[in-house]
């Protein structure tokens, strides 16, 4: 019994080594790799290439209108013990949108896997849409986060754009 206790203490003190083999950073293999982020602020110039589509131009230096469909490319976040990952989308729905459409339902997918929906029927700033992400999905980065809106404001003579919601940031945490 005491031997088992000593062995357990030794294991804790000496540390649990990473059992998965490390792959070295090889110059030739890594040259084409880019350093993607898992948090995409739509105003951050470092991540403009991660905005795959469905976003209009930057406004107010901090936000963008979306179209009906929009998507971003995200890196997996590093694992943190006792922490399960989730997809977080910060956005706003202005009064004009609710007045015109009544409500907007947003549906999120990650690499094609549906994570859930949420219906917004009141105008609000900085709405946080959070959905848990299955751990298995994170093992194949980069990940494509796609969003679909059931209602959008159609183009008008004054504004030829299709207007959905106001995107601020999308992240895997």
């Amino acid at each position, binding site marked *: 019994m005491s031997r088992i206790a000593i062995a357990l203490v030794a294991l*804790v*003190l*000496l*540390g*649990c*080594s*990473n059992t998965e083999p*490390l*792959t*070295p*950073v*090889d*110059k030739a293999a*890594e*040259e084409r*790799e880019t*350093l*993607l*982020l*898992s*948090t995409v602020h739509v105003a951050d110039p*470092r991540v403009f290439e991660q905005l795959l589509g469905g976003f209009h131009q930057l406004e107010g230096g901090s936000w963008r209108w979306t179209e009906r469909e929009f998507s971003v490319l995200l*890196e*997996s*976040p*590093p*694992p*943190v*013990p*006792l*922490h399960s990952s989730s997809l977080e989308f910060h956005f706003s729905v202005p009064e004009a949108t609710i007045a015109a459409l009544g409500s907007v339902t947003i549906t999120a997918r990650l690499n094609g896997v549906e994570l859930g929906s949420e219906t917004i029927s009141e105008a609000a700033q900085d709405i946080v849409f959070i959905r848990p992400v299955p751990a298995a999905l994170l093992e194949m980065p980069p990940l494509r986060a796609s969003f679909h809106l059931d209602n959008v404001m159609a183009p008008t003579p004054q504004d030829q754009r299709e207007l959905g919601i106001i995107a601020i940031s999308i*992240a*895997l*945490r």
Partner: protein
Amino acid sequence: MQVCALFSRHGAGLARRAALRLALALLAFSSFFVATGTEPIPIRVASWNMGDLSERPGGKAAHAWDLLSSKADVLALQECPTPDSSLDQQEWYGVYEHSNAILSRWPIIQSGLVAANPAWPRDLPWADIEPPSGPAFRIYSVHLTFRRGGTPFLAQAREVEARRILIHASGFDGPVVVAGDFNSIGWILGGQASAPAIQLLQLSGYTDALAAIGGRTHALLGRIDWIYTNGLHSTEPILGDYAGSDHRWLLANLSPSKDDPVQVPTSAGNNSVALLAVTALGLSGIVVWWKRRVRLGSPTSAD
């Protein structure tokens, strides 16, 4: 005619000897210059997590600063005071981000930040520096994440950060120095050189500039500060004192490697020691066996 021929032969011999002496002299002369004139001067690199020191001049930190700034040409600093603090950072070229900095006596050709962590802010400075002799080199001032969500057991997150630094460094065609506070702690007391971030550096061809002396750099957490190099070899490493910080400072003289850097995983050193021990044991066994044979007078020795 004969005299002329003799003279010419004699003259030819003299000329050959003179030419030989001249050639030898030139060889010695040129080798002297090859050895001394074109040898790049070592790059003196120091790394120190200053632990947000805010001591006034005259304190331990100021003494350490004076020492480092007199002994080093390039400094990788973490948790360092802002540049407008009391520490005299004039006469240095610098890159500063948050509390991480690179200071250089020599011109910085190019600099920037690497987003070391994809999920949370961890932008670390790098700089390409042109020394007076030898090739330009790149240095990163590293401060890997210590704690997230209350837990310091982030070995894999730190490995991700180290990997992103190395991927960024792989775009530079020259020697690289990765120096700073790697927070290479493991579970409870484990970790250190076996931490995944450190293992990754070693597997990727980087070598520990302070391998010859080792030692802990943090009183509680052990060896968590490192200077790792690729394409440079280290001489005269120094592990300094705490000087008011909770980290010791590190210093190494780095010179361009003549050959490609040798990949030395941690276990290699242990394997070498083990091989040496086994060899020594084997040899001592043979000696003992031989002495016994001689003492007992075996048939072979009787012959």
